[in-house]
């Protein structure tokens, strides 16, 4: 029997090659071990190719099924196992729920959320990917795979470009149409901020039609759009732990820090309205939030579990 071929009508599931196909799809796959396995027998590469294509076909089948409107509904009751991982991963629960058909007849949109201090990357059905900063929420709709609504926090989009089917993002009062690739969206207090790293984004395609290119950004407050520049390399820098603010009120900076760090930080009324421009490194802050005092020009108090930014005396 050929490793590539079929035995009668039953596909030959090559257990060893399938294991390698599963293993090498891992983010931290061991390429040295894989090379050693391949070199030990020249026939193994073709067996692996075959296993990968079967595995990917199987994966596509499940992915298509998750978004297929024809599947019958089967509501599974929550088991102890399930409850366990709902706590750990809301997104997992939601994605699985779609697969099992626990959705409303018309609205099958679902939410992907991160806890404060958590970051998560998700691959979308169309091959695009999004990264959520801590305390963020995004609504996705399987009926409209080329769209997303950002409801809270900060999300970096890496969109697969398709001129005939552009990707749409709703955020705050803004509607964005992707003209290609990588951009960051952030809700901060009453501000909506959009910054482009690569390609271009059209802001409010039905309204003022503002086109942003790499390194350009826009902030919307109360229907007013303000353009600014930002180093393209800094867009999405929150993923590397760098948080930048542009004329942000300290109350909003405190909210954002709470989300990103997973620590409760609030601004006392005396300083809440002050603005801050600059970049903060998350790493140092998580270990010692009191360094915020020098960075933001405030006093930092630790009360119970909470960190409070207040006027210096």
């Amino acid at each position, binding site marked *: 029997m050929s490793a590539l071929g079929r035995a009668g009508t039953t596909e030959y599931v090559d257990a060893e090659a399938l294991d390698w196909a599963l293993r090498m799809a891992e983010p931290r796959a061991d390429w040295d071990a894989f090379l050693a396995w391949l070199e030990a027998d020249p026939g193994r590469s073709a067996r692996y190719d075959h296993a990968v294509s079967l595995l990917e076909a199987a994966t596509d089948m499940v992915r298509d099924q998750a978004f297929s409107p024809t599947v019958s509904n089967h509501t599974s009751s929550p088991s102890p196992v399930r409850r*366990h991982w709902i706590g750990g991963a809301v997104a997992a629960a939601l994605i699985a729920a779609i697969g099992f*058909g626990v959705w409303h007849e018309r609205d099958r949109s679902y939410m992907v959320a991160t806890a404060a201090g958590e970051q998560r990357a998700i691959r979308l059905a169309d091959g695009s990917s999004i990264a959520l900063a801590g305390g963020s929420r995004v609504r996705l709709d399987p009926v409209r795979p080329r769209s997303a609504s950002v409801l809270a926090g900060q999300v970096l989009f890496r969109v697969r470009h398709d001129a005939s089917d552009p990707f749409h993002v709703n955020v705050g009062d803004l509607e964005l149409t992707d003209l290609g690739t990588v951009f960051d969206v952030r809700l901060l207090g009453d501000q909506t901020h959009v910054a482009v790293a690569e390609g271009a984004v059209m802001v409010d395609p039905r309204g003022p039609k503002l086109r942003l290119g790499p390194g350009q950004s826009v902030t919307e407050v109360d229907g007013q759009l303000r353009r600014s520049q930002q180093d393209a390399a800094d867009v999405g820098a929150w993923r590397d732990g760098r948080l930048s603010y542009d004329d942000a009120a300290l109350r909003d900076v405190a909210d954002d820090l709470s989300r990103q760090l997973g620590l409760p930080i609030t601004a006392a009324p005396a300083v809440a309205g002050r603005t801050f421009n600059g970049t903060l490194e998350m790493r140092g802050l998580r270990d010692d939030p009191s360094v915020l005092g020098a960075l933001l020009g405030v006093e930092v108090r630790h009360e119970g579990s909470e960190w409070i930014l207040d006027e210096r005396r």
Partner: protein
Amino acid sequence: MPPSGLELVYLENRDRLVRFLRARGAGDVAEDLVHDLWLTVSTRSEGPIANPVAYLHRAADRLMIDRYRSRSQAEKREQAWEKDREGENFMMPTPEREVGARQEAERVVAVLNALGDRKAGIFRRVRIDGVAQRTVAEEFGVSLSTVEADLREAARALITLKDAFQ
């Protein structure tokens, strides 16, 4: 212009990548392919790469998978054309094909239900969301070897089903 970080890693690992491509069935064209690989990788616009050596290996692996795929698709087209000539092939009427697709979807659901929430959930999380097996193990509160076993079982059940459709 001095070579970028990724280019340096590529140049340092070029021989190693040729060896990898050869082991992945590239044979005599491995040298050509490694060049193609660099062209593809260097024009790709992605963010910072955490582990460039692994990244290049993965890109090389993907290149070979794509070659395998396009080869087997060409073979399928050839076979279909031969059958056409022999008058064996015919297109199914559209409604029937639609019923076929619906039945296929229902059977996928049936297979996933038979596997149970945990195995199906683990398969989705790893294969569709692209989450590392170790992380998924923590999410589900099971051991890594349980995740591996669940993935294996789910993959086999789905591959068997996929085959039944063909």
